[in-house]
């Protein structure tokens, strides 16, 4: 049995070495999971895949106003986790493709503490998203409201005249989320502090 024991001892050292290497691989892969986050952000930035919260470029689109077509734009407002009221002043508007238009929303903090919120837009039909160009939007920044404060906030937009003719109505829906914890720089509405998928530390 002593030969068995010595073979085992010799092996044990090699085994431990491999164990350490594999543990390192494990740790690296754990880090890799987190590294995917900035990696994807970079990709989205470079390719412009996700510019939900940034002003759209309108320079490239056809600035000719297409008076022959009218698109109904409906505004929808939602709240998630915030004791605010949020409404659209217009409810809906009608625009011609290529025409610059402004819509105004009203937010009100009915609670007794200052709160910060972030609005996230979404579109119905989803296909319309890439033709709906927001030049200015309250959703590009976080909004901080003092207790009882009411604020009117604008969206300025153009509908690209390349919009498929099958789309006659676009619903623009905003949901306000409460921003809390680390990523709320208290009391400031920094312009475009929330870039496409920016990581907060």
């Amino acid at each position: 049995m002593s030969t068995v024991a010595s073979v085992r001892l010799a092996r044990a050292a090699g085994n431990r070495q491999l164990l350490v290497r594999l543990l390192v691989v494990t740790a690296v892969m754990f880090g890799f999971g987190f590294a995917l986050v900035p990696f994807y952000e970079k990709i989205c930035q470079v390719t412009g895949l996700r510019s939900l919260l940034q002003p759209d470029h309108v320079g490239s689109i056809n600035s000719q106003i297409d008076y022959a077509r009218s698109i109904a734009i409906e505004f929808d407002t939602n709240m998630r986790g915030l004791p605010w009221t949020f409404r659209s002043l217009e409810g809906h508007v009608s625009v011609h493709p290529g025409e610059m238009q402004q819509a105004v929303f009203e937010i009100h903090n009915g609670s007794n503490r200052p709160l910060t919120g972030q609005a996230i837009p979404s579109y119905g039909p989803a296909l319309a998203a890439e033709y709906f160009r927001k030049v200015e939007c309250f959703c590009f920044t976080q909004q901080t409201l003092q207790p009882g404060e009411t604020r009117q906030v604008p969206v300025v937009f153009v509908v690209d005249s390349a919009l498929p003719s099958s789309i006659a109505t676009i619903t623009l829906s905003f949901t306000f989320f409460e921003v809390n914890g680390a990523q709320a720089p208290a009391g400031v509405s920094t312009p475009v502090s929330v870039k496409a998928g920016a990581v907060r530390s």
Partner: protein
Amino acid sequence: MSQTTAATVAHANDHALDHGDHAHGHHPTGLMRWLTTTNHKDIGTMYLWFSFTMFLMGGVLALGIRAELFKPGLQLWHPEFFNQLTTMHGIIMVFGAIMPAFVGFANWLVPIQIGAPDMAFARMNNWSFWLLPPAALLLVISFFVPGGATAGGWTLYAPLTSQMGPGMDLAIFALHILGASSIMGSINIVVTILNMRAPGMTMMKMPMFVWTWLITAYLLIAVMPVLAGAITMTLTDRHFGTSFFNAAGGGDPVMYQHVFWFFGHPEVYIMILPAFGIVSHVIPAFARKPLFGYSSMVYATSSIAILSFIVWAHHMFVVGMPAAGVLFFMYATVLIAVPTGVKVFNWLATMWRGSMTFETPMLFAVGFLFVFTMGGFTGLVCAIAPIDLQIQDTYYVVAHFHYVLVAGSLFALFSGTYFWLPKWTGHMYNEAMGKTHFWLSLIFFNITFFPMHFLGLAGMPRRIPDYATQFADFNMIASIGAFGFGFSQLIFLAGVVKCIRGGEKATAQVWEGAEGLEWTLPSPAPYHSFEVPPQVK
């Protein structure tokens, strides 16, 4: 053969033998024996019983789902609870049943197939196992906390997971523990295979099961930490104000899907590669021919593993990827069918002109071959992006992955259990019970899942508690099949218990055509085997 006698002697001295590392003095008995054991066979057995228990638990949840879907309208559960059922069924089956079952097989078989006395890190092996019951307990407890268990689907997509109650946190902890266990188990397996082989057993002489597990273990070490990362991010989003996946803070829920599926697709191969290994032992044994194309099997397995890292987004065709991305992931996915096809053809060629007999292990292996291949084909259908736009998140996908997971992984596990059970217990199982188990499983499996293809093509979404009446008939058939399938598994339980208790004495060889070191050991395999390494020629 000399190592056989050496092993037998070791067995005879079982309790007196005190060899270095851990087993000081006597083996404890009763519960303490199982709590403290570092013996790979004991641990393998515990893994197998644990996974079977989880299989029954997951099965009960599945029957809860099918009972609700027996007819349209809400019958038994609130929709919220229904969602908990589907979610926990998936999590328990994937992480609690299939994965630990294969680890149990690895524990039992890898050392005796490569002529090693035990796993490389016997103590760590004990820890890997004993992490599992606490994790399972967390999952069970999660049903009873406010808001119930997590209901975001087994894939745990944000933003649902950011919004659930404490059941979600329990699931995250459970998955962390299960993941740690898998990683420890995998490291142990890699080290055992690379460092502990008997003299003369070169890499290209290793049994297929050992090969497939080596590759699976590498996959696990590479992707389990990524899953751990993804659910850790979910956890910090929920409680510590980060916004990895939280749109309000600038995060992106679609990012979660990218990170998850980087784990998720290799994971599906983690669940099937060891099954390929098992089938590659059973078919040659009952065809009484060596495995056709051994080295091409090794290369095919490796290429499947490598390709599995570049296809993850085929689960995400509808998230709005650019067309170039969709095309890349579509072609890469279709490419995986090539090495998979190589394997299927090799198994067929092994059977070709073999003198085949159809004992239960072979029945399950051939059943696997037919039905798993159908699942591979529906996978190809899903991989075609324009088609997937229609069938994503419908019952067609449910049919696809049950064909590959139930008729693939699970049938292979049954095949392997019947194949090695005589070696494990020393008794032959009851062939009539085994065959009944096979035929009922095969028939009820198809009654359950075949109609789901039609349901999916007709547009029935998955993960819903109620459905439009035009789906009623096929759902009723599927539910009947599910109950039949569930109860058929009790035959398996009875057969295994009966085989442990007694039965015809098994010879060392057990199966006429079986080859490999494990068959040189007496049946049941002695508690300590290959203390003196055998010489492989």
